[in-house]
């Protein structure tokens, strides 16, 4: 894990929670690997700290629950990610919020963190909701734009 920009598709096999994996899969091969890495992770928990170490920018793509209609896109950056995910993503003991907080505390966090969240509805062993599949193209464009801007300001 050495690319300065890292995109992590976060998820689990449960219904809409797979959106992060679908996004990461669709983004594979679209960037210069020396600059941008793309990978999928299943409930990475504290492992996220090791994954993020040394990164300039980390883009997390995950399903979230905030009460908005299924498929709604959310963008959060910096501390807002940590504050928000603590409230509206499902926790798996040690989740994204805890990993970001601990990474910061150990001065081990990335320079910047952005979360692209997709509002999910179904969190059980089921197929992904159509609304999320429909939101995927918009999500991919948004993440690619995010990366383009980041690359242009880095160089």
């Amino acid at each position, binding site marked *: 894990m050495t690319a300065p920009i890292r995109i992590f598709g976060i998820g689990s096999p*449960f219904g809409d929670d797979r959106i992060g994996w679908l996004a990461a899969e669709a983004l594979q091969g679209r960037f210069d690997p020396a600059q941008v890495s793309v990978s999928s992770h*299943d409930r990475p928990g504290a492992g996220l700290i090791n994954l993020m170490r040394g990164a300039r920018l980390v883009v997390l793509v995950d399903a979230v629950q905030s009460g908005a209609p299924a498929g709604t896109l959310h963008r959060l950056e910096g501390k807002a990610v940590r504050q928000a995910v603590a409230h509206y993503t499902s926790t798996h003991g040690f989740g994204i919020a805890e990993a970001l907080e601990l990474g910061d505390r150990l001065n081990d966090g990335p320079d910047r963190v952005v979360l692209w969240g997709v509002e999910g509805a179904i*969190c059980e062993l089921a197929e992904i909701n159509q609304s999320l599949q429909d939101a995927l193209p918009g999500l991919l464009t948004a993440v690619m734009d995010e990366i383009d801007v980041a690359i242009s300001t880095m160089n």
Partner: protein
Amino acid sequence: MSDAREVSINVPLMARVEGEGALDLRIRDGRIEELKLCIFEPPRLFEKFLEGRSFEEVPDMVARICGICPVAYQMSAVHAIESIFGLDPGTWVRAMRRLFYCGEWIESHSLHIHLLAAPDFLGYPSVSEMARDYPDAVRRGLHLQELGNDLIKLLGGRSVNPVGARVGGFHHAPQPDVAENLLARLQAALPEAEALLYWSAALDLPQAVQDFEYVSLRHAHEYPMNEGRIVSSRGLDIEIAGFEREFEELQVPHSTALHCLHQGKPYLVGPLARLNLNFDRLPQPVQDAALATGIRWPSMNVYHSIVARAVEIYYALSEAIRLLQAYELPAQPYVAAHPKAGVGYGCTEAPRGLLWHRYELDGQGRVLSARIVPPTSQNQARIEEDLRLSIEQFGTDKPEAEIREHAEVVIRNYDPCISCATHFLRLKVDRA
């Protein structure tokens, strides 16, 4: 509240356990009237989901049950299926499966000790707070966890939902230079693991000596991981196929996980049970270090579970070093499987304890039925029993917040993998 004779406590979310679940507690006249640990369990869904699937798909599918212990699910499954096919994958595969399992123990135990449990015993609400005063201990935990993940990745291709394992062996063998590189890193970390053992034993752990039966695998000459007989502190000694006859599963209305009982009583599985029953199977240096903590093994203090985890990290790291020192590239990393109809059993030691699988396959190797009994549902009745004893001893008249906190410490000590045994956890304590 001072006049209330009935108290019910409701805690909607339980922190620092893997996954989500709920605890309902009702106290009346200072007595616990009702205590229910609620677990919602994906393995039950997966059992149905597996029906009709080919044996080749099973290892990848069961790995998805848990993001923390996918190796355990794969290992119990491949052993069960190979027993049906009469397939012996040979010594290389056997050694590599053990190595794979060492990775999972190191990763899972390091996470639990440092990030989930230690804050309880050092007086912090979370590991982030603890990291301010103990940054090096937290970094050590993250480092050991990373090494465990890298071991899993070596054989599994990736550390989450590893895809490398198959019936008959592994899809790929690691290149010797990659194995050697990891070996050097493990050797460098061995002193950290030994230090962690003493550090965990020096924590201010509660004295909670309770009377309970503990159950684990036992192997003729190894510390148990993939093979052995099922034994207990009360003299049980059976083949793994006998599990269903000996242990009963009861459906309880408050949980989709089944309560497992042995002869009508709760029992413990996991690191403390394993260590208590297999201390003599540890190599001498690990035994010496475990004794140097001053703890007498076997221990009936359930809080010694955290020390047992540290002993097992030290052991798993030593064992991984031993296995990697002998590493050789095989001609082929698996033995081809030829499907047969039949019923087979797999029982291995997941980080949290016995993980028992039973499969019935047809002549093409398709799953007719599957049964998966994860360690957390086996421990569920024991956790409830411990909670009842601990909360009564702690004082049912204490403020709600203190009871809640105490209950969470008790539950966390068992490292319940509620993401195996459930999907969402909410803690509800009710003193209505």
